[in-house]
């Protein structure tokens, strides 16, 4: 009887085994499916963004010979900085273009011709002359930025001159551009402007440096405030606060704050910092304050988790030696919790870096050309810049939008990598 009951058991086990294996396989397949879905979304997102944005890192330039003729420039005293600054450099560029296309006549055609070159060309020349006054009266070649329409045309055109996106270019302009291309003086070069200038109405002159600096100053304010405040709050709540109704209430509310939509923080900042404290609009200081409010709950929650994870045996050891509460916290608990707290803070900051809505509320959505030099200069931030550009109809802004997204993603990815690296680096075993 024993024998046969064993056989029955074995049979049943074998039957159930097949079922278990199937269940196991299904379970694994769900997981793999979920991951594949995630990866597909990511790949689609990245191909789209990179596909649209990569061309923004290159910018079409045209090589022109210019003569810094003092008569054309209206400079009679080259030592006078005011004259150098106020000189008519556009005239020089125009003269050079007219020389290149002598048979263009008539006001309209001339204007169309001049429109091929970015209207920042005079600024370029002024910088050159200011740097080296000796250039006055000399003739030399300069790579000028072309207008964004020409840039788009050049980029979308195939090598044999077919299928360029002509956009707002008229037929004559296209002929001129083709002749410049055939002459080999038009070239795609790395777009340094994109990384060295602020926003502009002209796509070819628009860059993200202003937005990057704005984000940087905003984040500096956020780090400087939210990390110390968050850690102090977490340490107090975790180590010192008595457990009672009141602290429970605080805890619940911190968790609630973490779930509050960020635009609410923007409204709060608008009414408190700008309305009540009368700070200026659009400045990184206010942006940083608002983002501090927004990231604090995240930092407090993750710091508390990190503090909680410090093994009680370490506290016991320190207390057992006669360390005071503060010594236990400062010498042992905080250093051990630091990797976790830093990780939380960086993730909070990465969130803050990508945040747009609250910044819109406090006016960091303004059109700012100058690159901010401090926390009280008007500025915008990277995500807001993306938002602004995505609204512009020009093709050149479409590619810049994607390029700016790429830059933002690079920052986010590096911050998250830093968080992982820090955690690995500082993590100690006990």
């Amino acid at each position, binding site marked *: 009887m024993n024998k046969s009951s064993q056989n029955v058991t074995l049979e049943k086990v074998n039957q159930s085994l097949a079922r278990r294996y199937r269940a196991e396989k299904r379970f694994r397949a769900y997981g793999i499916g979920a991951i594949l879905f995630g990866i597909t979304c990511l790949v689609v997102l990245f191909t789209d963004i990179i596909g649209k944005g990569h061309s923004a890192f290159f910018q079409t330039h045209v090589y022109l010979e210019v003569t810094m003729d003092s008569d054309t420039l209206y400079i009679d005293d080259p030592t006078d900085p005011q004259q150098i600054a106020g000189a008519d450099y556009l005239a020089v560029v125009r003269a050079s273009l007219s020389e290149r296309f002598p048979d263009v006549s008539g006001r309209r055609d001339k204007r169309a011709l001049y429109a091929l070159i970015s209207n920042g060309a005079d600024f370029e020349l002024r910088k050159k002359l200011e740097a080296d006054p000796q250039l006055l009266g000399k003739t030399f070649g300069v790579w000028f930025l072309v207008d964004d329409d020409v840039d788009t045309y050049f980029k979308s055109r195939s090598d044999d001159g077919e299928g360029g996106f002509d956009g707002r270019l008229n037929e004559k302009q296209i002929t001129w551009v083709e002749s410049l291309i055939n002459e080999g003086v038009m070239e795609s070069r790395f777009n340094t402007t994109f990384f060295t200038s602020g926003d502009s109405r002209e796509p070819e002159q628009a860059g993200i440096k202003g937005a990057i600096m704005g984000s940087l100053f905003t984040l500096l304010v956020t780090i400087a405030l939210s990390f110390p405040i968050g850690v102090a709050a977490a340490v107090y709540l975790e180590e010192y606060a008595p*457990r009672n109704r009141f602290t429970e209430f605080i805890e619940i509310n911190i968790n609630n704050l973490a779930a509050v939509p960020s635009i609410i923080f923007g409204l709060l900042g608008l009414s408190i910092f700008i309305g009540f404290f009368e700070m200026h609009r659009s400045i990184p200081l206010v942006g940083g304050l608002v983002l501090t409010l927004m990231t604090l709950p995240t930092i407090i929650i993750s710091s508390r988790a990190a503090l909680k994870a410090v*093994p009680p*045996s*370490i*506290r*016991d*050891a*320190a*207390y*057992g*030696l*006669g*360390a*005071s509460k503060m*010594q236990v916290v400062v*010498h*042992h608990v905080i250093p*051990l919790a630091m990797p976790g707290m830093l990780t939380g803070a960086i993730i909070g900051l990465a969130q803050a870096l990508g945040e747009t809505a609250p910044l819109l509320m406090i006016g960091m959505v303004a059109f700012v050309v100058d690159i901010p030099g401090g926390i009280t200069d008007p500025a915008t931030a990277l995500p807001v810049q993306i938002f602004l550009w995505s609204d512009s109809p020009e093709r050149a802004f479409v590619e810049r939008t994607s390029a700016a997204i790429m830059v933002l993603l690079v920052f986010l990815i590096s911050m998250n990598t830093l968080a992982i690296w820090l955690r690995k680096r500082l993590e*100690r*075993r*006990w």
Partner: protein
Amino acid sequence: MEAVIQKKSEKQGIDEVMPSNEPQDIQVGDKTVGKPFADNPKMAMRNVNVHYGDKQAIFDVNLDIAKNEVIAMIGPSGCGKSTFLRCLNRMNDTIESCRVTGQFILDDQDIYHPKQDIVPLRARVGMVFQKPNPFPKSIYENVAYGPKIHGLASRRVELDEIVEVSLRKAGLWEEVKDRLHSAGTGLSGGQQQRLCIARSIAVSPEVILMDEPCSALDPIATAKIEELIAELKQNFTIAIVTHSMQQAARVSDRTAYFHLGKLIEVNDTKRVFTNPEHDLTEAYITGRFG
């Protein structure tokens, strides 16, 4: 039946929780039998009651610990040995629900006096825990930490000296002198525990409390620590909680037997293990419950 009981008593050294199948006929009684008092006590505890919230963990315990003696505390799991031991340097203060009443005298000083600062108290009454818990710092830093926070050394040389002496006393110096600045957590379990002992004697306490210091160690490491306790006895007063009756018998002068929060019997160790006065003690040491 008899054989089963024998087996159990052999397993005595193992730290495990078993439901106590307490013999019904034995009376617990209100008074501790034997010799709970000493002529020249280092510490004297009177009418000690401890509650965790509503639950009482220690009932009316009276006990003296004599100077330079090793007193072992034994008893079934959950009977309150750790709780009582932790009262002696007020480690229970860190547990919020814990309420301690009664008198604790250390050399004429009431250690629960409202004006008593726990920092100097813990410098005088050190503690070694069940699980080795070195700080995740270097061996040197581990031992030097106590002297540093108490300002025992004003110069580096003095600190070096304290570290060396403490490590020597803990029998660890020869093993670690070449790697004082490597991590304390990189030592073996037994070495870590001796490091913890060195760390606590570095502040020159008068009393050392040990809560099952060997329960996480292998027999050889255990033997080393037991040897160490015998040596430390010259300079320190030691209270040790243990689950191993053999260990209690080897290292201690007196043994206190706790049962369900009550101190049942205190006697010379030899007496407790050969001819216990109380029936419960006998039941425990013969392995009838545990």
